[in-house]
């Protein structure tokens, strides 16, 4: 065993001080201020007067070692071999010699990595793995990002925006990279029920574990074709793929029904207002590789609308809060649907619980309402004539109440429903049923009682319930 080297473990990462440029070592903790000199270039000035210049460029995140070596060559040529990466997958070259900046910028740009991402602009896109590496993806990651940023590269290399704009993409609800607090979040979504491989599921997965993985308790044990398996209640499944995470035999991926949703107005920084989650702008766009035109159009539209309307320093979410969501949907030309209204736990917290509304919310809404009413009127005219009398319906109801006395109590809604179905052929409508209930009460054949709920009953002695 002499040639077996002793295994080294738990040494942790190298200490960062091995990699710091001398000017940083000397001025650690002494930086006084910084200035953005031009797009992608900034200087930090120390209390000692020393300066460090930074040139920031976009990487595609997925990098070949060949490209990393090219970065290293540039760092050797201009920066005594010093470089770093940012939290958003940008590469940064660190110089002390101001005169070398322009040549460096030229070389980096020529190598295909745009310089920018500092100040009021779009920085690099934080994103996940997608079809390049992950099993869970509802869409690709790198391809969508590439398509979107090809359209928005100018917003990275220039500083023309009102504030910072952060875009992030996650290819499924696991959201590696936590995209849920971005100005614009692009999120892959599944929209159909998990497929269940009944023959294998009991062999591959622990069924009790699987059942408890579902946040909405949609999964129940079931025997299917003689196999011990599960079934999913489609009414409460929200396509979160928790089940798939714990059990490979329940994939949700579906080429025809997977797609992309767009969320806006999230924010991480605590500057000005508290951090915010991104909110739903577009529930579903199709997966359309290789260029995802629908997604590109949606994102650029939102970016441009914000850029045209926001005040200086206003992030997407701050702008939307100032102008209100109705105006945001209007300005961006986006449709508001039932999917935009939260229906998970504590959904009410996101409802508008105030009368604060802007004039934009008044005119149209009233117009729509009248239109709906008119439609309803027309439908009513077409409805067939009622061929049963109020008295007959009332008699039917009275009999129902009387027969059930002491056994079951009915609410007026129960009586109405029963009447509608009993007299369906006579086209009994709600109006007639309602009139029948009124007739019963007004003739004193029945009374309303109130004990653990309101009911229609035969009058009995006044006093406490027996």
């Amino acid at each position: 065993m002499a040639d077996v080297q002793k295994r080294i473990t738990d040494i942790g990462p190298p200490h960062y001080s091995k990699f710091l440029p001398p000017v940083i070592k000397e001025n650690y903790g002494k930086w006084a201020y910084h200035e953005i000199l031009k797009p992608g270039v900034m200087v930090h000035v120390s209390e000692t007067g020393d300066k460090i210049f930074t040139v920031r460029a976009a990487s595609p995140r997925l990098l070949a070692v060949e490209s990393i070596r090219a970065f290293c060559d540039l760092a050797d040529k201009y920066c005594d071999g010093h470089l770093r990466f940012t939290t958003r997958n940008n590469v940064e070259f660190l110089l002390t010699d101001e005169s070398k900046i322009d040549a460096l910028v030229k070389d980096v740009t020529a190598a295909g990595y745009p310089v920018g991402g500092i100040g009021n602009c779009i920085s690099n896109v934080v994103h996940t793995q997608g079809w390049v590496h992950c099993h869970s993806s509802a869409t690709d990651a790198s391809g969508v990002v590439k398509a979107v940023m090809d359209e928005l590269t100018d917003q990275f290399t220039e500083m023309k925006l009102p504030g910072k704009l952060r875009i992030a993409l996650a290819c499924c609800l696991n959201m590696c990279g936590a995209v849920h607090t971005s100005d614009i979040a692009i999120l892959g979504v599944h929209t159909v029920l998990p497929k269940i491989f009944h023959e294998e599921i009991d062999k591959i997965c622990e069924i009790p574990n699987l059942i408890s993985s579902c946040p909405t308790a949609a999964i129940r044990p079931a025997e299917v074709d003689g196999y011990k398996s599960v079934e999913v209640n489609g009414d409460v499944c929200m396509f979160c793929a928790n089940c798939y995470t714990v059990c490979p035999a329940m994939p949700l991926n579906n080429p025809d029904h997977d797609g992309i949703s767009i969320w806006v107005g999230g924010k991480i920084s605590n500057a000005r207002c508290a951090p915010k989650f991104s909110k739903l702008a577009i529930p579903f766009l199709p997966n359309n590789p290789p260029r995802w035109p629908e997604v590109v159009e949606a994102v650029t539209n939102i970016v441009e609308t914000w850029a045209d309307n926001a005040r200086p320093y206003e992030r997407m979410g701050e702008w939307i809060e100032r102008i209100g969501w109705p105006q945001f949907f209007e300005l961006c030309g986006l449709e508001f649907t039932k999917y935009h209204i939260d229906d998970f736990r504590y959904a009410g917290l996101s409802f508008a619980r105030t009368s604060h509304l802007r004039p934009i919310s008044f005119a149209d809404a009233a117009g729509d309402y009248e239109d709906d009413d008119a439609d309803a009127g027309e439908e009513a005219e077409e409805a067939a004539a009622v061929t049963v009398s109020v008295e007959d319906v009332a008699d039917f109801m009275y009999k129902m109440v009387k027969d059930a006395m002491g056994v079951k109590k009915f609410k007026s809604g129960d009586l109405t429903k029963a009447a509608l179905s009993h007299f369906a052929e006579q086209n009994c409508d709600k109006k007639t049923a309602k009139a029948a209930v009124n007739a019963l009460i007004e003739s004193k054949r029945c009374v309303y009682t109130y004990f653990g709920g309101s009911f229609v009953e035969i009058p009995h002695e006044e006093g406490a319930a027996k």
Partner: protein
Amino acid sequence: MADGKTYETPLLDELTHGPWPSFVTEIKKSAKKSAMCSDLLGQLEQSYEEKIGHWKHGGIVGVLGYGGGVIGRYSDLAEKFPECAHFHTIRVNQPAGFYYTSDALRELCDIWERHGSGLTNMHGSTGDIVFLGTTTDELEPIFAELTQKGWDLGGSGSNVRTPSCCLGQSRCEFANYDTMELCHKITMQFQDELHRPQFPYKWKFQFSGCANDCVASIARSDLSFIGTWKDDMRVDNDKVLEYVDGGLNIVNNVLLNCPTKCIRWDGKTFEVDNANCVRCMHCINVMPKALRPGKEGGCTILIGAKAPIIQGAQIASVLIPFIDPVADYDDLMEIVDNIWELWCEHGKNRERIGEFIQRINMGTFLEAVGLEPIPEMVAHPRDNPYIFFKEDDEDDE
């Protein structure tokens, strides 16, 4: 070495055009030397045609003794694309602040090229250097070479995930504590917890030097450290006047954006009501030459951020309003220990600390870890009257 097949990839080729750097170009660069990358291109093209991924659900692979740091990945088209039948990811713990020398990076590139596809992410979203694509056989050799050269694996699974920080005092004048040193110290202290999963679920530490939170700690770390200061903001009034002379509309762009409206400005003097400044950084961001955080730096610790899975997303909330993480390091570790002890004993499988606290409730959590409830922890006191009074508590009074 690269006698890999080549495939027609018209859909992917479309993505080599345009001004933004292309991941397809990167994969093609690596495919010159790696047959695995050629097959990856073939498989990816098929995904683009069919609009579906072709990777199988995880796999249990790793290096001896560690329970994390490797994500197993297998192709479901292994017969068609045998070279990428295995395509495992290795997470390498990055140096704090993501600084490198070209020599160190070349060393990593050489190791990775010898033993894997040559594709990387610089960096994964938690912070690790990600090596994408290798086979099970190569794992031990890579690990041996990495550790020889002083590198180690990062976390994955139900363990401490690789801690990550902003570059802090190394280059940023806003940093209120030494984020890189604290990140490194904690990474070293918890090597065992990082490499050997022993928790109900993942645990992330992240460190930002100020409220700008450049590592997004408040959105995704179980314990988030955000720099702040105790004493007064440093104001250089002459420099404020220079910004104004330079055209800055100080009323619209600074005063009206201050969340607590705690700045007074009479056209000549910029005055901060420090007792009401919430250290949000906005005015300092706008005028970095004129304004600086105070000198008594430290951080606020927040707990419980997470992405939606399982019960819903959470932004972290205040646990400790101010701590000097250097002077009070031991207290900090005691709090972390207490939290882990409680969570490990009572947490359910796949329950992040944020969801755990929601389940057992914050009051119970604080009692169990020995922290006092304080108003800093809430946006406002409860407005729902369903209070779970405990008989014992009432007897005390």
